[in-house]
């Protein structure tokens, strides 16, 4: 049996009230997993716990077998995080930003520079590589952040609403980039409000609500779980998240 890219067991987190309650989740290596849920369902909190930005109250997180709570640095070394608000420095250019990120992940310049060049060209940022990010549109900033997330060749890529605010062309480019990353062996966990993205891109979909995993499976499996007359993911999503718990 192949090792799970991400394994979450009994994860719980409360702020003023419980946000995540005893959550179990497993994502196989090489899979694109979409985590869906209504606003306030706990998607971002879950992902922030996986990336080490928020400490869970209880439970365990394993990334490729590494205990992310016991050895966070080893887990972070193979993980990339791309939130909906890009983690950028406006006064740096894309090349400089990638240089900085590569430094944080301690990628030798001889490896990082060619990879940066490839990413900048692939994401159509090459002609803007020496322009400061402050001048960029939201879509371009998101692409720079994506390049930053990919520069250290993460095995697990975690994205929180990566398509927020992007126009159709940019959104297509990002979706293609994600699919290509998976095809090259990466594992992706993505949250999105755009159900069409999950429908078209994801290998498996998890629906979270009230801090619990409500349903999980392929698109067909979710349709089946929702009921025989549910034809679209949107129908299944509404039915599953509105069902009494």
């Amino acid at each position, binding site marked *: 049996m192949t090792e799970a890219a991400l394994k979450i067991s009994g994860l719980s987190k409360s702020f003023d009230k419980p946000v995540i309650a005893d959550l179990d989740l497993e994502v196989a290596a090489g899979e694109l997993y979409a985590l869906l849920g209504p606003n306030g369902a706990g998607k971002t909190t879950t992902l922030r716990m996986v*990336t*080490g*930005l928020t400490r869970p109250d209880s439970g365990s997180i394993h990334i490729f077998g590494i205990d992310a709570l016991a050895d966070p*640095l*080893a887990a*972070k*070394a193979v*993980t*990339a*995080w791309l*939130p909906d608000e890009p*983690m*950028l*420095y*406006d*006064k*740096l*250019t894309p*090349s*400089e930003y*990638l*240089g*900085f*990120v*590569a*430094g*944080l*992940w*301690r990628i*030798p*310049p001889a490896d*990082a*520079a060619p990879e*940066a*060049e490839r990413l*900048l060209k692939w994401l159509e940022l*090459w*002609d*803007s*590589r*020496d*322009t*400061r990010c*402050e*001048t960029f549109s939201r879509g371009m900033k998101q692409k720079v952040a994506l390049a*930053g997330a990919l520069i250290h060749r993460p095995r697990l890529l975690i994205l929180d609403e990566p398509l927020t605010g992007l126009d159709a062309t940019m959104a297509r480019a990002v979706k293609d980039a994600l699919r290509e990353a998976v095809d090259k062996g990466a594992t992706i966990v993505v949250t999105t409000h755009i159900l069409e993205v999950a429908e078209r891109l994801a290998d498996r979909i998890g629906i979270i609500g009230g801090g619990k995993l409500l349903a999980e499976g392929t698109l067909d499996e979710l349709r089946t779980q929702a009921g025989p007359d549910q034809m679209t993911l949107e129908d299944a999503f509404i039915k599953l998240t509105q069902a009494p718990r």
Partner: protein
Amino acid sequence: MRRLRPGGFAWLVVHELRLAMRSRRRSRRGLWIGVALLAVFTCVGIMAGLGLRDVPIEGGPAVYTGALAISILLVSFMTTQALLRSQHTLYESGDLDLLLSAPLEPRTILLAKLCGIAGSVVISFTLLVLPIAVPVAALGHPGLFGIPALLAALSLASACLGLAIMIGVVALAGPRAARTFGQVIGALLAGSVFLISQLLSNAGHGRNSGAMSLFNWLREHQIGAGGVGALPGRAALGDPIAALLLFGGAILIFAATGYLFGRSFLSSYQKARMRLTRHRAATGAVARHFRTGLFASMFAKEWRLLVRDPALAFQIVLRLIYLAPLALAAFGHGRGPPLLPALAFASVIIAGQLVGSFAWLAVSAEDAPDLLNVAPIARKQVNRAKLASAMAMAAPFGLILPLALALTSPLGALVTLAMTAAGGAAAGLIEIKWQKPAPRKTFRRRRSGSLVAGILTIFATAFFGGIAALAVWVITAVGL
């Protein structure tokens, strides 16, 4: 505001003044401090008024020259403030889009903005001057009621001058340069007068303040004793014709600015909106931006972020202005044994301030903290790299006074250097320990975020500075 015609000039002016007042609104604590200061000023004014009640205040060549010197200094301050307000109006206020999209004449908007700029400028000086001037005037010197008229005239003229300079810079050098120019002027505001007065003092004018130096120069050249130069003094002492002439002149300048710059104001704003950003042609490979090691990456990032923010860089480097009198004394005629401990002490204090500032930018004002949190590096290592970056950026400045000391006492210089490094490191560590996330643009107000850090930095640097001063004093006393 309700009684004014909506969209009219007066209505717009009241709107601008309301914005100017609200932009000054501070916290409740700040408000109480302001009220307390105002009360103290007023008390000082009342005491001065009582003390001067039977003392005649009369005009004369020396008084008029003095009033002219003060007016020139006030105009320089006011124009600088007006430049800043103009820059804010053109680049940051964000309400010009709304105003210019309304069916209003651009010239009307410009004139209302000018009144707003003049109003915001005059508020500062009114709060400083009137609590003292009005009691003195009310307690036996009614002629001094001319001071508010003088202030109003000076502020109006300064507002016009500030906006004209800003529009001129936009026209000549483009909006990017104008924005940077405005930011740098703002940063220079605090230090320029100090520096100029120090330079004047060291240029053979004795140990006088800038105002006194200017006064002496005007008197030597017989400027301000009579004629047009005496108008500010006459107006301040209640000469109605002088006040009328000055205020009328300011109104004329105001009208002329509206007439001359009505069109260019609109185009400056349009340019400011359109061409603030610069697309640099991409050149060469990206490999030059990749470095080995965390410190190198961190230093490169912090350095770039600093030098690409001229306003911030100037604010920090301006602290070096306080080196000026010490440096002038150290390298010039004032060198001598009693000065050396003071130099050693100052070296540590200045380095502590600089490292503390750089460390605050690197730690508290980190733009992407989550990026560092998700990177596979321990927080300690990140902090260490940031502290090292802050110290490396401050190092060239921290060497200045030890080098000056080395001319007289090499051993004292070594001790000072060590204590400067220790003081800088302590200041940086305090910033790291008491870090509080804040945007970079709040640099000037960073101490309100962590008062403890500020106080501890002062104590720590004073401690190391004291050791340095004591050691240098002993070294020079025993002749080592």
